């Protein structure tokens, strides 16, 4: 128990003194997971909405693929991305392995199906005639999709938070494709694993606490947007 309190105390100490390494790791976590979530948002919401509104042969199959994708094991994603990005692999020429870019790619692959699946369900839950109603008001396709997305903002934002939560806490793929390189591709989660394996439990707990604080802060902002007080 003392270990946990020590860790919490150390967490606040590190934050209060702006410990440079911790700041750098935290900022990198935010950048990597933030960018990955943003990418997953763009791809997930656009494709999710398209599949929700369209009718085409094999649609059910596509939907079940998306739903399966929501449960993709991150570590499997990491493995496949690594194999693709290897120097001698198909995408080796990009030279992206063991960089934050690779981590963004892996995390985006993990988060996108989550956002996609939730968007799909959210748009399908809207009233059936709403799409026609919006079109009858003279909206372009783009305007219509935008209005539908706004109408479904409650579940959609939940989807974004789910996607973000999934990747900010991800460690397996991040270590594999990022390499956990000090000062370069080390993020809160991978640093926690490393400190634990070194036996530095107090630092590990501190990093864990900082990660929780970061996740809470981001989600608080998103929740605020989601639950924005509607006019009386």
């Amino acid at each position, binding site marked *: 128990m003392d270990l946990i309190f020590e860790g919490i105390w150390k967490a606040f100490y590190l934050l209060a003194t702006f410990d440079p390494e911790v700041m750098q790791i935290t900022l990198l976590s935010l950048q990597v997971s933030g960018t990955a979530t943003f990418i997953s948002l763009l791809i997930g919401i656009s494709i999710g909405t398209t599949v929700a509104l369209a009718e085409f042969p094999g649609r059910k199959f596509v939907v079940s693929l998306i739903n399966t994708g929501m449960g993709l094991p991150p570590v499997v994603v990491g493995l496949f991305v690594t194999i693709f990005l290897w120097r001698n692999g198909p995408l080796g020429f990009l030279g992206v392995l063991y960089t934050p870019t690779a981590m963004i790619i892996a995390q985006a692959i993990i988060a996108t199906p989550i956002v996609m699946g939730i968007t799909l369900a959210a748009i399908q839950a809207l*009233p059936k*005639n*709403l799409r*026609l*109603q919006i*079109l*009858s*008001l*003279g*909206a*372009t396709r783009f*305007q219509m999709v935008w*209005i539908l997305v*706004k*109408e479904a*903002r409650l579940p959609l934002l939940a989807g974004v938070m789910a996607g973000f939560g999934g990747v900010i806490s991800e460690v397996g793929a991040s270590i594999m494709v990022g390499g956990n390189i000090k000062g370069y591709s080390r993020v809160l989660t991978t640093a926690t694993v490393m400190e634990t394996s070194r036996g530095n439990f107090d630092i590990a707990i501190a990093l864990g606490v900082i990660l929780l604080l970061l996740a809470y802060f981001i989600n608080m902002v998103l929740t605020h947007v989601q639950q924005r007080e*509607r*006019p*009386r």
Partner: protein
Amino acid sequence: MNGSGLILEGKDLQVYKGGSLVLEVPVLRIGEGEVLSLIGPNGAGKTTLLQTLARLIKLSRGEILFKGEKVFSNHSVFDYRRKLAMVFQEPLLFDTTVFENVASGLKIRGINRSETAKRVDENLEQFGVSHLKGRSARKISGGEAQRVALARALAIQPEVFFLDEPFASLDPPSRESLIEDLERILRKTGTTTIFATHDRMEALRLSDRIAVMNGGKILQIGPPAEVMNQPLDEFVASFVGMETILTGQVIKRDRGSFVASIMGQEVEAVGEIGVGESVVFCIRPENVTLTVPPHKESSSARNIFPGKILKTIPMGLYYKVQLDCGFLLVAYVTGHSLENLSLTEGQEIVASFKATAIHVIRKTKKAL
């Protein structure tokens, strides 16, 4: 009807859904400023026709012309859609304020703030919901919501206005007041309106023309009086409220009138029909008079049939009385009359109706 010309025309319209033909309308012409209602049972194709005319559904075959111009390419479809508005059975309001809802069509068109505010206020006023301006659309009653939906539609000043059973979900008082308001507004603006309903009273009240639909086809289209009183076939007849529909064969003929045998009884009607031809008689229940024997009244009614009351059904303002006179006959009587004549089930009664009150439909199909 301001009828300055044809505003909308459909030619050879066909829509297939899931392999079957759900809409087949060879020709449909709608004049500018006209109010046309589509009536028919569920699944008749009213919604399909409305959405097809609004170009929300793709045509399998045929074309639509708006003011003489074809509406078919993506570009022209989009332009056309910007000139119309549609209101559905559910209000389908957006999750924002009433003001923003009514403004949405204008915002989509990029109309500036002040013009938008002006039109929104006007329409809120028109539909009596100005006091709800800042309220969330989720927090108003069903009747208020439908008013907001109508305001939203009319704020964009459409050239054609489509309504799909807009009053069906409302309670009677809300419905009544809204129909009144809408009637007044449509008369004032002269907007071409096409609306679908399964309530023939609404249709009667608001329309310049009524189209009766079934099975994806328009069975009859014309002014209300014509459709209501001169249905072209049994289906239309029963749908427009001809409660008594009898089939029989002509046995006698005289100048301008004839007698048909119906279930062994002789019924006289007006028309030029040859002996041996099959006919269908449609009689409006309002035109059937009841007397209690042994009162003998001399009247000009040629059709007098004794019978028995099968059932009396209260219909709010009046009573529907079902009789067995050898054939089934339906009459409407006021509550007052019901009391006066002490009409009860099983009672012996005499029913009469004029030969001229019968609407005759020829059954024998002439070679086309």
